[in-house]
């Protein structure tokens, strides 16, 4: 009887929340870059799944040589990256005061192919946090709130810092339940970088 109908409703509602289909998968890395003044920003690398990689090749590998030249890379930046500016490039930063903000600008974009035919995006997110008198902690989270893209950190290599070794520094991957999205069902991970005063 009406359990049928109710079942359908539940199925639909569940489907919406739960089916939650991502279409694209990214394995992300973020590496902090330091200079004489302090944190200069993050080098971010995305490695895409096979289908999306193929779709990028179909659209942008103009000479069909299964390599991405600098011209093709620039076409990808304009055609399949710049639009992400409307989504903060999926990247959220947490300053030493604990405030979060979405990324507005990226630099040095480069698209390439790895040995397995996966497309890689690499770019720099400039973000200045000067050394202070004591240790400070900053964070970076990468996720798509619309969940078209499922992004996870590549664990091992994500947890590195670039440049000179810093005193009292540490890197850890933590969950951020306060930023849960997609109806609260996805808790994004954040890389927390803790670094000391000027080395």
């Amino acid at each position, binding site marked *: *009887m*009406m359990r*049928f*109908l*109710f*079942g*359908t*409703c*539940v*199925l*639909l*509602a*569940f489907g*919406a929340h*739960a*089916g*939650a*289909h*991502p*279409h*694209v*998968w990214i394995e992300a890395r973020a590496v902090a870059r330091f200079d004489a003044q302090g944190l200069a920003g993050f080098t971010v690398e995305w490695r895409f*799944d*096979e*289908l*999306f*990689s*193929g*779709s990028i*090749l*179909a*659209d942008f*590998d103009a000479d069909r040589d299964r390599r991405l030249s600098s011209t093709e890379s620039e076409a990808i930046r304009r*055609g*399949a*990256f710049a*639009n*992400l*500016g*409307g*989504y*903060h490039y999926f990247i*959220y930063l947490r300053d030493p005061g604990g405030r*979060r903000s*979405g990324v507005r600008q990226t630099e040095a974009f480069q698209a390439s192919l790895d040995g397995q035919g996966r497309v890689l995006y690499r770019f720099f997110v400039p973000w200045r946090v000067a050394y202070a008198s004591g240790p400070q902690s900053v964070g970076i989270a990468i996720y*798509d*709130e*619309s969940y*078209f893209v*499922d992004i996870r950190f590549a664990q091992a290599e994500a947890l590195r810092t670039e440049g000179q070794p810093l005193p009292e520094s540490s890197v850890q991957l933590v969950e951020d*339940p*306060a*930023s*849960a999205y*997609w*109806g*609260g*069902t*996805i*808790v994004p991970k954040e890389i927390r970088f803790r670094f000391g005063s000027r080395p």
Partner: protein
Amino acid sequence: VTRVLLLGLFLLLGRPAAVGAQEAVNPFFGPGTAEPSLRAPDHSSAESRPGAVTTILGRWRARTAALQEAFTAGVARRMREARTGGRIGPLLALLLLSFAYGFLHALGPGHGKTAVFSYFLSTRSPILHAVAAGLGIGLLHVGVVSALVLAGYFLLRVTMSALVADATAVLRRLCAGLLMAAGAILLARRLFHGHAHREAAGPSGQAGSVASLLTLVLGAGLVPCSGAVLILLFSLSVDSLGLGLLAVGSLSLGMGVTQSGIGVLTVLGKQRLLNRLQSSRPGSWAHAALEIAAPALVIVLGLLLLL
């Protein structure tokens, strides 16, 4: 009785509006995305512990996402195998996998399920209509993508992903209009003729006309399927367009089966519900309310598509 029904409707509408009605927007290409999502999420509030339901949904979400990832990876692998092997095995595997992926894919947000549900809730349609509408939506959903990709590849020579994204933006508005029109027609019929019809035909309501059924299929199916775009473009990247077309054909059947299933369940469920309601006075009130609420929901879905 009405409470259970209302709860069902509430569940339907209570899900995030942005994902309730529309096919997902590809953020890499989606046109004019700037402002709505350009808000840094304000998470200054104290940490909230997820409730039990959220936790269960979260686990379910993670499972289905992992499953979809495996499906897409499998489609890519089988397509390579079918291309190089020349044997029938990998091709069958590719078709089966695409079918299953379509079935699962259509259970996710978008793809017009809610429209199908509301439509068949508001009409007294034969099961055949539900089957036809479901398969029609599945075929159209993928057919539009195939036409766009083929046109982009052979005729226009443009970035196909961008072409699909631009077309999606236009078609979404068209679909919104169609859904609102379908809802309005059904609603007007209820309001102006519904009573007379019920007197004449008993409490069963009337069958949707072929025109309104077609409007539903167009309104729910014309938005391109974002999963099919990726499969077709991947097939182009490995020089196997034929295999790609076969795969998305199978995908569309899988989606059609999901849609038909929802339509058929709704038709059967409604029949049983009406048999129940027939006997009592509150029941006939609930029936009247239902026949107003369901087409209204179709209109709301159209409106949501415009957001």
